[in-house]
């Protein structure tokens, strides 16, 4: 079958041409409204009004009026009735809809069963008959469509404000009641215009699904509407062609295409798609494992050797996983494997230090700001460390007042150069050494004050007289003073040469 056969041959028939135009119109009108129904949570109102149209069609037939007017009247009346029930009783909107639309629907059935005529074909009203669209029907659909689109276009910003923040809309003086009824009227008119094409049962799908597809893909109304229109048109068109070639009912086929598009978006959509989310989660899990590997390799390295067996034990994964991870990191230039031991490159070392820094900062944060007991923070920080960029770590550091140690007492490495290498606490110095104070831990202002009172400040040169369990005796600026262990351990020094 050629493309010509697929797309052009069906259009040789006048009824197919009319069907095509009708499908395009309905796809567009319903899609535009579907966006507002979705955000207003009125999906069920669409359902309600579409069913309530049935008695109108029957009445119109009995009174010999155009069925369009009968349908709009009962549609609008039911919508108003729902509002009235909601306002004047304790019944909530969903139940009010259920009561009134089933009532109206039943009335429609009763009337039609009374008519017993072939002129009103129940099946066509319920499920549409796009192939039987007359020129008059088409004109009517075109006019209603143009009217609906014009109103939405003119009232676009008001409709958005009202659906987003109804209170502020009212406070700004928008006629919220008017907007409410306008949207209801538009909905009724659109449903009636769609009767021939998809029928009153399936129009609900065209009033919900396109908006829902677009909602999953974009996050602003101004983009959601064109996208929904695209979905509506694609559904209507491909539904029509499919129904022609497969020789099946056209209205339901359109709805099935729309439903398929929704399912596809749900599974594959780049933002919320189930498949992508799963892939992202898997990637993130991989990343976490690689980072943990790097960190453990660094820690093992500082405590001796990072052998593959030791890493396997520390990470709780089999040796062959360790080898695979090491190979991946080696390709990235972060580690090297020598004689079944992992050696970090300078770059790998730096990354590991960043992770440790992030981990310890998070622990500090959880304890200081989150009020989490320090015994419980490790596991949490183990997850959070992977979230931190260098930038975030810097912000955390700043917000915490540049702490020196994590809640467990391990030092928090600073900057890219990592832990201040070559510094020792005053308590770790030897008798008779000359040292320079490079940093005083400032977590406890009281400690800082007392050290400052004794003249122990960064930049000061000290002579260590004696290190004893009860304190460190030092000469500072010719004065001898004793620092109790709590104070002495807060003083970081380098060799004074």
């Amino acid at each position, binding site marked *: 079958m050629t493309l010509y056969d697929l797309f052009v041959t069906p259009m040789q028939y006048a009824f197919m041409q009319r069907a095509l135009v009708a499908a395009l119109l309905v796809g567009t009108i319903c899609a535009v409204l579907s966006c507002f129904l979705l955000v207003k949570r009125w999906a069920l109102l669409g359902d309600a009004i579409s069913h309530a149209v049935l008695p109108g069609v029957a009445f119109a037939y009995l009174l010999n009026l155009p069925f369009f007017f009968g349908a709009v009247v009962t549609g609008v009346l039911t919508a108003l009735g729902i509002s009235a029930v909601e306002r004047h009783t304790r019944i909530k909107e969903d139940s009010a809809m259920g009561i009134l639309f089933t009532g109206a629907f039943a009335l429609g059935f009763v009337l039609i069963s009374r008519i017993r005529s072939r002129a009103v074909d129940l099946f066509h009203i319920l499920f549409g008959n796009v192939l039987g669209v007359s020129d008059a029907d088409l004109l009517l659909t075109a006019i209603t469509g143009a009217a609906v689109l014009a109103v939405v276009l003119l009232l676009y*910003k008001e409709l958005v404000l009202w659906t987003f*923040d109804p209170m*502020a809309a*009212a*406070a*700004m*003086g*928008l006629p919220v009641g008017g907007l409410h009824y306008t949207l209801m009227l538009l909905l009724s008119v659109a449903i009636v215009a769609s009767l021939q094409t998809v029928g009153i049962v399936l129009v609900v799908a065209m009033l919900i699904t396109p908006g829902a597809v677009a909602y999953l893909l974009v*996050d602003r*109304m101004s983009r959601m509407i064109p996208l929904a229109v695209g979905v509506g048109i694609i559904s209507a068109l491909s539904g029509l062609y499919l129904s022609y070639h497969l020789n099946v009912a056209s209205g339901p086929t359109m709805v099935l295409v729309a439903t398929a598009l929704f399912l596809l978006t749900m599974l594959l959509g780049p933002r919320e798609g189930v498949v992508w989310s799963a892939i992202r989660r898997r990637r993130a899990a991989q990343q976490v494992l690689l980072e943990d590997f790097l960190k453990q390799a660094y820690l093992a390295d500082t405590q001796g050797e990072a052998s593959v067996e030791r890493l396997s034990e520390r990470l709780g994964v089999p040796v062959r996983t360790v080898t695979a991870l090491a190979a991946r990191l080696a390709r990235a230039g972060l580690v090297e494997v020598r004689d079944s031991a992992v050696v970090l490159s300078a770059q790998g070392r730096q990354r590991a230090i960043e992770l440790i820094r992030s981990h310890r900062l998070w622990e500090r944060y959880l304890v200081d700001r989150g009020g989490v007991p320090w015994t419980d923070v490790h596991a949490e920080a183990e997850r959070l460390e992977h979230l931190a960029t260098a930038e975030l770590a810097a912000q955390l550091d700043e917000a915490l007042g540049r702490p020196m140690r994590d809640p467990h007492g391990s030092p928090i490495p600073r900057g890219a150069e990592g832990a201040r290498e070559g510094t020792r606490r005053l308590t770790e110095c030897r008798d008779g050494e000359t040292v320079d104070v490079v940093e005083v831990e400032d977590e406890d202002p009281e400690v800082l004050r007392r050290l400052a009172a004794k003249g122990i400040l960064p930049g000061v040169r000290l002579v260590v007289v004696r290190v004893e369990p009860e304190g460190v005796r030092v000469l500072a600026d010719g004065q001898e003073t004793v620092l109790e262990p709590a104070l002495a351990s807060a003083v970081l020094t380098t060799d004074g040469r």
Partner: protein
Amino acid sequence: MKEVPAIEVRNLTVSYRSRPAIRNVTVQIDPGLLVGLVGPNGAGKSTLLKAVVGLVLPDSGTVRIFGQPIEAVRPQVAYVPQRSEVDWDYPIVVEEVVLMGRYPHLGLLRRPGPEDRQIVRAALRQVGMEAFADRQIGQLSGGQQQRVFLARALAQEASILLLDEPFVGVDAATEETIYALLRRMREEGRTVVVATHDLSRAQTSFDRLLLLNQVLVAYGPPKEVFTPALLQRTYGGRLTLLEVADQKRVGMRP
């Protein structure tokens, strides 16, 4: 000459389904004040704010904004609803939300122009949310969302700002940022009324406190009204109404 009060509420009674929410409230709020509207849950704080902007119809009493009915001065009054009144999943980005502040100046049918967009950008800059202009509103933290709504009020160029429970779901640090913004708006001459059920900051953060529990318990500077007796009457349970009525009767005796 005494200036016209920014908000003047006289003998205001509002009820929902025949249950009174606020009763006979009379208060005058002068321009340029940062006012805390405090009271327990169900005290009618939201109702009072809504009555001021004309969102609920009073059973009796009047509200005047700068001496005029609200309908005449709507663009002057910005209202920030409670968090729960807004759909945070709405497909809308920060910039578009702030742009809504321009609508009262545009009227029906007109589209916002480049000038409006400039005002919006300036408002976002003021609240420090410029970098988030393209973010969907639900992706922000509670505090950031409140700042966006403050920016909307700024874009509206309103001289009266009414906020309903802006600190719900906001952490302490962000709360401070929002207070700072509110103070700045007050310094620019705006009148700011904040409904809050949180008493902890009320004493230090506001120029005036309005204690409400269905009736107006007190209105004045925190130093004068933040007293145990008045707070007891505001928060002291269901008896309040009777007590106040009793006191009135006592007061009326010769």
